[in-house]
């Protein structure tokens, strides 16, 4: 690709295409000790920044489950000299968008802003204030706590929430990945818990910044330096314990829904594990390849039992789960479960066929450009590479790593990672 029709007159002379190859990731560390991962791209007047802290739910004290999400939420609801409405108004004035989430490992702030200096500066100043001077004002804390309780109570009426919570509890037992936020644990939270969680986890050594878009390297360095300047230099990383594998179990939860929600899973894979590629390629055939997977063909196409059925690996800092999930009308829940287990067992015994292996590689390699065809897609990939310490050439080597997977690799990796003796099953509304 050697020509670029740019979209904007303003950036006509600067425009550079995202290329066929993976984006070049630059890496450095700020004075405060945060790691920065930067992809320069001037095709659009946009800057995307994701700040990830090792401040996910796995780092919560068990009695304070819910503190991680509440802490993250409160960061944007009051900083030194500005209340939540002033922050939101200024953000909206410059057309910037702030989002983020909290998962087991990470708490994220994701900022998208226009790159023009007058817009960008305002948005970045707000982000810096959230990172350096959050106020955790008592009245705001109480209100957000009440909103969390309301949202949780509502979620606990839904079969998909009940199924997912029961599955994680069964897969991880007392391990931090298995802990669940409860109405009681949130209601018991005090402002001091949030302050303590923030002080312990929102620090420079626990932070990674992914920056993608219309900045020069020098500008990106200045931005990263400024954003992280006030972050404390300690404490550093703490590790999450290695989970033990559960014994196979089956749990049924009554629910008035028309459809049963079936989930099967076990702890399987951590980030950076060499088994990742054989499992990814193999799972494409089993239940990852959308309409062409074995589970989809068996459960949906051949028997019309479900609208959606899938399997996936979710690698985390520690062993993250392998999961299979589907929903089917409750009268046929037992048949669907039997069928799903048969498809899994047959896959574990034989692995994919030669043709299936080829099809999996064709799709995973062929679709690689689609995974990197926008700044927001690149941001997501770079953030994962940075946070989990994957090699900087991870994206460059991705197609080769897929290509070299063999049938034997897949069978061996599944035999190691997906052992039926450890597979737990949850059925909600299957009565």
């Amino acid at each position, binding site marked *: *690709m050697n020509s*670029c*029709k740019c*979209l*904007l*007159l*303003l950036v006509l002379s600067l425009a550079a*295409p*995202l290329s066929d190859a993976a984006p070049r990731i630059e890496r450095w560390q700020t004075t405060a000790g945060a790691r920065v991962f930067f992809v320069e791209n001037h*095709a*659009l*007047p*946009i800057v995307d920044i994701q700040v990830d802290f090792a401040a996910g739910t796995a780092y919560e004290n068990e009695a304070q489950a819910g503190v991680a999400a509440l802490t993250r939420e409160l960061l944007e609801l009051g900083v030194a000299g500005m209340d*939540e*409405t002033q922050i*939101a*108004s200024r953000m*909206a*004035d*410059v*057309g910037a*968008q702030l989002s983020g989430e909290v998962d087991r490992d990470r708490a994220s702030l994701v900022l*998208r802003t*226009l790159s*023009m200096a007058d*817009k960008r500066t305002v948005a970045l100043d707000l982000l810096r204030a959230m990172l350096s001077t959050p106020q955790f004002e008592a009245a705001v804390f109480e209100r957000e706590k009440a*909103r969390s309780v*309301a949202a949780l109570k*509502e979620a606990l*009426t839904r079969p998909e929430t009940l199924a997912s919570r029961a599955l994680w509890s*069964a897969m991880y037992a007392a391990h931090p990945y298995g802990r669940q936020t409860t109405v009681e644990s949130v209601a018991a939270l005090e402002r001091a818990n949030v302050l303590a969680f923030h002080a312990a986890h929102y620090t420079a050594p626990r932070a990674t910044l992914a920056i993608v878009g219309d900045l020069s390297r020098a500008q990106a360095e200045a931005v990263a330096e400024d954003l992280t300047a006030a972050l404390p230099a300690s404490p550093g990383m703490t590790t999450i314990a290695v989970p033990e594998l559960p*014994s196979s*179990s089956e*749990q*049924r*939860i*009554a629910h*008035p*829904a*028309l*459809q049963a929600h079936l989930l099967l899973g076990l702890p399987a894979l951590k980030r950076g594990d060499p088994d990742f590629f054989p499992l990814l390629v193999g799972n494409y055939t089993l239940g990852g*390849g*959308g*309409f062409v997977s074995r589970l989809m063909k068996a459960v949906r*196409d*051949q028997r*019309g*039992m479900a*609208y959606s059925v899938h399997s996936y690996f979710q690698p985390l800092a520690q062993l993250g789960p392998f999961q299979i999930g589907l929903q*089917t*009308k409750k009268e046929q829940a037992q048949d669907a479960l039997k069928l799903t287990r048969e498809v899994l067992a047959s896959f574990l015994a034989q692995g994919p066929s030669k043709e299936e292996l080829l099809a999996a590689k*064709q799709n995973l390699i*062929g*679709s*690689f*450009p*689609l995974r990197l*065809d*926008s700044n*927001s897609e690149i941001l997501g990939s770079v953030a994962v590479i940075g946070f989990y310490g994957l090699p900087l050439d991870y994206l460059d080597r991705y197609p080769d790593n897929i290509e070299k997977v063999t049938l034997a690799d897949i069978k061996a990796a599944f035999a190691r990672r997906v052992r039926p003796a450890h597979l737990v099953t949850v059925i909600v509304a299957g009565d």
Partner: protein
Amino acid sequence: MRQTRLIPLLLALAAPVPALAETFEQQLPNGLRVIVREDRRAPTVVHMVWYRAGSMDETNGRTGVAHVLEHMMFKGTPKAGPGEFNRRVAAAGGRDNAFTSRDYTAYFQQVPEHKLAEMMQLEADRMRHLTLDPEEFAQEVRVVMEERRLRTEDHAQSLLFEQLTATAFQAHPYRVPIIGWMNDIENLAPADARSWYDNWYAPNNATLVVVGDVDHQAVFALAAQHYGPLQARQLPVRKPQDEPPQLGTRRLSVKAAADLPLVMMAYKVPVIRHVEQDVDPYALEILAAVLAGHDAARFSTSLVRRQQLAVEAAADYDSTARGPGIFYLRASPSEGKSVSELEAGLRAEIAAVQESGVSADELARAKAQLIAGQIYKLDSMFAQAMEIGQLEAVGIPYTQKRRLLEKLQEVTAAQVQAVARRYFTDQALTIAELVPQPLPSAARSPAPARH
């Protein structure tokens, strides 16, 4: 024909300039419209076909047929058997899917740019040669019934929305859920799908949208080669089915498994029919942004934060549609607040605009959001293709997009106040309340059983 003309109004606001990317259009002799946007940032392409037939074109007893046919489009032609379409797209390194709305049905593939010709060949084949095998049909109807259970029957908020819509509209087919009523889905026959397909799946009822790393002339040539041989057909007459004026407030309630009450208020409002002459739909878009377009908007600031009446509150309005428009307000009360207190709170927010209007700051903020949103959209080829396809499907030429943005920028505070006064009346209001039904206690405290 590089389009780089600046938009004076946007410049006046010192905002960046979303000049349209290079976009080209051609119509084939069989009536198929082909729209191509060249976006060379990455070696990928989005290929979409939009049919101007959605659930609003269905008839009594056959609701859901538009959506079931969409599913059947993946079930094979004589050239490409059941499952072959998905297999070929996957082998090409692509993603594909389809969606049905009230106004249209659309199919898309996202693929590496060199696979575009193959996608066109597949898509053109199923535009005319669908097999519609009765056994595949019976199987797929079961899948769609599972889809309805998942998305509607077991989902309290969806049920509320479905009932609200069915109450707000009585004559216009927007009253019917897109997925169809369960009993209609269950009783659909292959012949219903066949006649739907024969009626609407014709090149003269379709728009082809291609966005990505392509040359427009090459795309036109490919389109002529693959879609050109298909014959235009006479389309059925579309009856207007205008909704008669609403003569008073309608109220309903829905009991379903939930914990959080929810109130939805639906006001009948206009949508864009004449891009140039219309004023009110643009003012309504700005009103929606002022009420709930961002975290500093009135609902968040007043209802959620200051008064703490609501745990969440939203406003929703789409100014483009083939059918009539609705402006929705939606909110859930905080613990200890009643639905009627919350309803009064929502009404008070509307009354405040009716009486005192909106400030210059609020207006500027709403417009800044809209402009930034347009630029962010340029980061996604899929979003750009969606925008072109949706406008065309509701009868607004994509070339009018620039005018739509300008018209939004021209909205004044007085116009926002005027639409709040004109349309937010009790007479044109339908209110729905979700009455949460607690789960049986067994569902709340599951006992693990090992074996």
